[in-house]
């Protein structure tokens, strides 16, 4: 179900916790699985639960509780924009509007070619860098002007 590389990464996470507390690695394991699969289908969550020796329902509860897990397919690139108040004071909403216009989609939508999904985010702990975007959950982009947004979209377009 998961590649050898993903399993090795998961094993490294498991090793951080006491031997009888493998479940503690579930958040990381789901993250690693999501990176490989693009999102978290039910079978993948069940596999992760099994791998950690925990009930599937408990892993599913975790996957549905935390915002950054995708329980439905998303575009190849997921872009999350922070629009919370501190960011909004420095252009967070303007940046989000610009992205919507450029991509021709609203929040929680995916472009017809399946390349981009746009999400509205909450505070990312980077408000001094507003506007900020998070690309594919892993890459934070600071001080997003329209030109920089154009640049990022162009780079992602080819990936």
């Amino acid at each position: 179900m998961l590649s050898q590389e993903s399993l090795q990464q998961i094993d490294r996470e498991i090793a951080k916790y006491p031997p009888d507390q493998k479940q503690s690695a579930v958040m990381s394991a789901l993250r690693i699985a999501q990176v490989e699969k693009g999102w978290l289908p039910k079978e993948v969550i069940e596999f992760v639960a099994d791998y950690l020796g925990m009930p599937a329902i408990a892993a599913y509860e975790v996957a549905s509780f935390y915002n950054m897990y995708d329980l439905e397919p998303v575009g190849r690139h997921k872009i999350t924009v922070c629009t919370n108040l501190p960011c909004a004071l420095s252009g967070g909403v303007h940046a989000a509007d610009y992205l919507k216009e450029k991509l021709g989609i609203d929040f929680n939508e995916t472009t017809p070619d399946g390349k981009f999904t746009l999400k509205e985010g909450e505070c990312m702990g980077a408000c001094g860098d507003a506007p900020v975007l998070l690309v594919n959950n892993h890459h934070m982009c600071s001080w997003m002007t329209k030109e920089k947004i154009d640049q990022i979209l162009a780079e992602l377009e080819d990936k």
Partner: protein
Amino acid sequence: MSGSGLILAGVDGDRTWGLQDYVARGGYSALRKIISEKIPPETIIAELKASSLRGRGGAGFPTGLKWSFMPRSFPGAKYLACNSDEGEPGTFKDRDILRYNPHTVIEGMTIAAYAMGCERGYNYIHGEIFDVYERFEAALAEARAAGLLGQSILGSDFSFELFAHHGYGAYICGEETALLESIEGKKGQPRFKPPFPASYGLYGKPTTINNTETFASVPFIINMGGEAFLNLGKPNNGGTKLFSVSGHVNRPGNYEIAMGTPFAELLEMAGGMRGGRKLKAVIPGGSSAPVLPGNVMMDCTMDYDSISKAGSMLGSGAVIVMDETTCMVKALERLSYFYFEESCGQCTPCREGTGWLYRVVHRIENGLGRKEDLDLLNSVTGNIMGRTICALGDAASMPVQSFIKHFGSEFEYHIENKKCLVPPEVQYEGSQIYVRP
């Protein structure tokens, strides 16, 4: 980021985070001293008490006192947790500490583990900052390789294992017991207290949780002595503190200043008001702290006591600055949406109440408000506060109460005229994408 103060002193962006540079700045000398001089744990805790260091995560609880709650002679494992789940809107200091000076957190946690007899610790890092998580992992590897972390630290019989745990997008995991649940691999739902984590914490074992900045301050306190640290600030408000300044200023960023520094000076450091516009309001301690009118804020100094006397909280030290182009109804609407979205749903008053607050503020903002709505908002907050498992219920209520208290006429204007007091085009201009000079 400013390179002054203690934690950020000599720190130069991404270039100087590593072990070698940290040691060149005097790093790990506090840990070396403790281990080579075999300083008794009680002495360390007494030093912390003398420093009057108060928790930097929001509640401002005295750190030395918290450490003294850990059972001294507990037979099994004891744990330490660092709260780097920085998600309180406006707060972005822990991210800079972790990426620019991660070893000060590692050293501070190791000293804490020594003082409380903890064998293992976890640093819970906010989900959205993956690069910082990787940086912290790299710093941990450096510390282990140098014998500063792990088994038999610096050749002594003291051992401490420390690991990074990555969050994945839930504000509530910043609440300390939700954080513990999350490390256990569960939904991040706060626990009933008591029992407190010092008696029943991670995996049911005694645990102490402190904020990133709290731990980062510890090596400096050991090096300079508690009293000298206290004297940097003012009585009951020891030391320096990082303030995250966001919003309508010319240079948003983190500024580390002595406790008790006038707000006006902090504003000046942050480059003053953007476009020379007029200061309207400040949220001085993260989105959960009550908002204060600009003129009240201009008379405050940046410390727990002064801000609390003015009717708000120093909280996490997140200073959200709003100028005259801000519509206060719209500002509150966005915050109320946040709390509604992030309530974990365990307690009815919070789950239902936050939704109610958001919907009522939303309808006022959209010109559908009713005369009785302000009373309704106040009554809903009254029914939330003090009736929930964790403080998120209060955190959602305090903005509502304070916005109405100080800017009630703007809300009334909205309800009567079905539009903003600040014209939309003025708001639009004032919240443009900010291009750094």
